């Protein structure tokens, strides 16, 4: 299975009926494709919409109905629209149940860096800092390693997104949580052993007696 699809399918299992969910760009966007149709999840787009729907069919796009990247989307029955103050009131005010974001690094205490590589990539943080600070639950969806280097690090070397630790990290190799503030291996991806995860992870991971395989 494609690594991104493993991540998206596993993250989708975290969403519950009635949740208000904000998905970041990249792998997180894919999560919406794997939410069972009987689950009533509200997706927020921070440019001012709850109830985002799929990309409209050819010729059906409307210039005033877009996602946070400016791409055409649709709206589901029951959708609502609002201004940016309301949108970030929802985010910072703890009304968003789950946010799923991409990551550059997550450290052993769950701190996330995902908005800047000094001297190389300075795009701006957009809504990321508010989302990590304010959402009830923060899930990072990212590849376990980039160019052979672990993205689960002992301590973030890149600028932090928030002082608030994330709740869960889902990668193509593992699910990692932070009970008692310590990175802990909760699940492995299908066909991946605990030893293989440990071998490519820079951060020290606590390993419980049994580590189940991800159910996808």
């Amino acid at each position: 299975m494609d690594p991104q699809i493993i991540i998206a399918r596993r993250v989708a299992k975290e969403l519950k009926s009635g949740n208000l969910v904000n998905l970041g760009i990249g792998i997180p966007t894919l999560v919406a494709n794997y939410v069972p149709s009987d689950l009533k999840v509200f997706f927020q787009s921070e440019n001012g919409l709850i109830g985002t729907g799929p990309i409209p069919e050819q010729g059906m796009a409307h210039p005033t109905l877009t996602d946070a990247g400016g791409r055409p989307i649709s709206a589901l029955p029951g959708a609502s629209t609002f201004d940016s103050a309301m949108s970030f009131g929802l985010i910072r005010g703890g009304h968003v149940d789950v946010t799923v974001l991409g990551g550059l690094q997550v450290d052993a205490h769950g701190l996330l860096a995902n908005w800047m590589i000094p001297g190389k990539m300075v795009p701006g943080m957009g809504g990321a800092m508010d989302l990590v600070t304010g959402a009830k639950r923060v899930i990072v969806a990212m590849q376990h390693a980039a160019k052979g280097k672990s993205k689960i690090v002992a301590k973030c070397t890149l600028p932090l997104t928030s002082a608030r630790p994330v709740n869960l990290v889902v990668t193509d190799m593992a699910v990692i949580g932070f009970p008692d503030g310590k990175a802990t291996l909760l699940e492995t991806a299908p066909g991946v052993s605990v030893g293989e995860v440990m071998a490519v992870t820079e951060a020290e991971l606590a390993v419980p007696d049994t580590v189940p395989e991800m159910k996808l």
Partner: protein
Amino acid sequence: MKAVSVEEAVAMIPPGASVMVGGFMAVGTPERLLDEIVRQKKTGLTLICNDAATPGKGVGKLFDAALVSKLTATHIGLNPKAQQQMLANQIAVNLVPQGTFVERIRAGGCGLGGVLTPTGVGTLVAEGKRQIEVDGKPFLLETALRAQFALVHAFLADYLGNLAYALTSRNFNPVMAMAADTVIVTAENIVPVGVIAPDHVVTPAPLVDYLITNG
């Protein structure tokens, strides 16, 4: 509210002015005003806008024409020209978390000195800012943001200047319409008074100084 041509409206903006522009990735942005600013070559602008859009679209046109000297925004990663101008120190860029950006403008429009937000505590954003504890929780003091001009785009404007917006093109427009000395509006549709029901007016007419007439 006064109805004016786009040429007259932009002629009021001096070079070097501070200008807030509504829109999110050029969705809900007053394109006609931006085209005219480029035509009249208003240089040295202090731009306050969520993002830098993309080249050729929305405020992206202002970077194409090198009219911006200072920028306050939340994200400019999708406009390589704005990035180049920032890295070459041609523009001074202040990057702000999006929720903080909108609350600073809201504060500016509502007579507040600023807001206390938890966003940015313990990050680079906190540098040089006052941290204030409320009930044991740390917050950053983020000061109010205003501009000389707000350039706003609405879906409907009636003859009095009441405004309504469409779907995701609302974004920063109603907040910016509160936070500038002079508010200039373009609308997709100019309609008779009464077409926008009182409950559906988002920006009340007294906030609008100038409405751009159909060209």
